[in-house]
């Protein structure tokens, strides 16, 4: 078993319990752990602020040629979504309504500007934990 990544794995644990957070510096810059100072301005201390319940997709891609850790996942959709003071990068799930990614990979399953919720899922290839997004039914 590989060692945990202190700070990061606690953050993933919190995310999976619906208690995701961002680190926020006195100047209001958001960042993700582990951090000792703000990566934007070097200030401290950093406080943990709850992530908003939903975020907005700013860009996405449908990956057809994966790295080995994602061999069985491809094609899959990776998106960058804004959640308050931070953006998160994650894999979009449930876009076909059956828990799978857009199988034909035409990229139409998700749109820039779409609202998503964040959770933690598993890579199909090796079960590794990953940040996942799921479109919010409107």
């Amino acid at each position, binding site marked *: 078993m590989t060692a945990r*990544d202190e700070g*990061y794995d606690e953050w993933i644990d919190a995310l999976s319990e619906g208690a995701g957070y961002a680190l926020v510096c006195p100047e209001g810059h958001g*960042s*993700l752990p582990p951090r000792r100072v703000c*990566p*934007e301005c070097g200030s401290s201390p950093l406080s943990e602020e709850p992530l908003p319940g939903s975020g907005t997709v*700013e*860009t*996405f*891609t*449908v*990956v*057809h*040629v*994966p*790295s*080995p*850790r*994602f*061999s069985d*996942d491809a094609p*899959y959709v*990776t998106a*960058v979504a804004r959640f308050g003071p*931070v*953006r*998160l*990068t*994650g*894999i979009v799930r449930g876009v076909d309504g059956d828990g799978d990614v857009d199988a034909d*990979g*035409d*990229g139409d399953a998700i749109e*820039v500007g779409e609202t998503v919720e964040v959770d933690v899922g598993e890579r199909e290839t090796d079960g*590794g*934990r*990953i*940040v996942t997004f799921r479109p919010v039914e409107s």
Partner: protein
Amino acid sequence: MTEVRVAGVGLTRFGSHPERTGRDLFAEAADRAFADAGVDRNAVEELNYGNFMGALAEHQGHQAPLMAEAAGVRCPATRYESACASAGVAVREAVRTVAAGDADVVVAGGMERMTNLDTEGATEGLAIAADDLFEVRAGVTFPGAYALMARAYFEAHGGSREDLAHVASKNHENALPNEYAQFRTEVSVEEALDSPPIAEPLHLYDACPITDGASALVLVSEEYAAENDVDAPVAVTGTGQGTDRMALADRTDLAATPAAVDAATAAYDDAGIGPADVDLAEVHDCFTIAEVLAIESLGLAEPGEGIAAARDGHTTADGDLPVNLSGGLKAKGHPVGATGGSQIAEVTRLLRGDHPNSEHVPDAEVGVAHNAGGTVASAVVHVLEVAE
């Protein structure tokens, strides 16, 4: 400060040479650079060597002494790693060393061996240039990261896959006469559009190939060139480097590369020139969208207008500002740790007039080279000028 001259340049043919060792590739590039320079290898005072993923590809760390041996030099030798900008930073430190008067003769360049890995292995290797915790674990591959930037660019400024296909077609056209290029084949806009998807909206012909190759430059002081009768008509007059947040998601703007703006601003200031003085550019087009972002960062196109530059003919070989006359990473190939050095070699030859594409830029006096690492968390820009 002394002026830094390019005494000689050397490249291997870029391409797929899976059986060739890294040390042999670099030895060939160094050999060519020494022959081109007419400088004795015993005169070399430092070796700055760029390499990105040799620990994965060849199970070989600590490559600098190995490459000093391969080049037949015995001097302080250091490996530089900044992902795809590894050779760029190696060259930059060599330029600074000579400019500061700390050495008169420095060899800089780099090498990457990649095709001995399979596609998944190379994809994994390239992905380690991204943030492992927050990007790679979320499925971000190297093409995927640029695809995220491409879609963000389209959202912010408009543009289409067809605009990007014009960049691909242009660079393949430029590579046709380049004896060092991996692909010397034409690719039409239609063929580029019809190629299979890699990471949408990017398709196969938006991407540079996986490449083995090496580059080497012999940089000397102006005084050394004069005293030793070394023919070195091109000078490196400006160098600049920039750094940005590592992960794409942490950038202020997903459709811009401010590290390259910082690098360009510093390099132009160092050279005492501005973007309007530039006659030609070699930019880091690992993906077609990267060329668009590069020329905007270099001030050669306004933000949002770089997307149309190839389509409208501004950056083609017969345009007012030819970009990637070598074929670029796109068609010439991208041996990651060698690329920054090879760009300087191409600009040098274009300005000297002995490049197969020099005929397109007969009066050129100023060229720039733009080398980027990762999703441009690192960027290096150099200005080269005809000095005599």
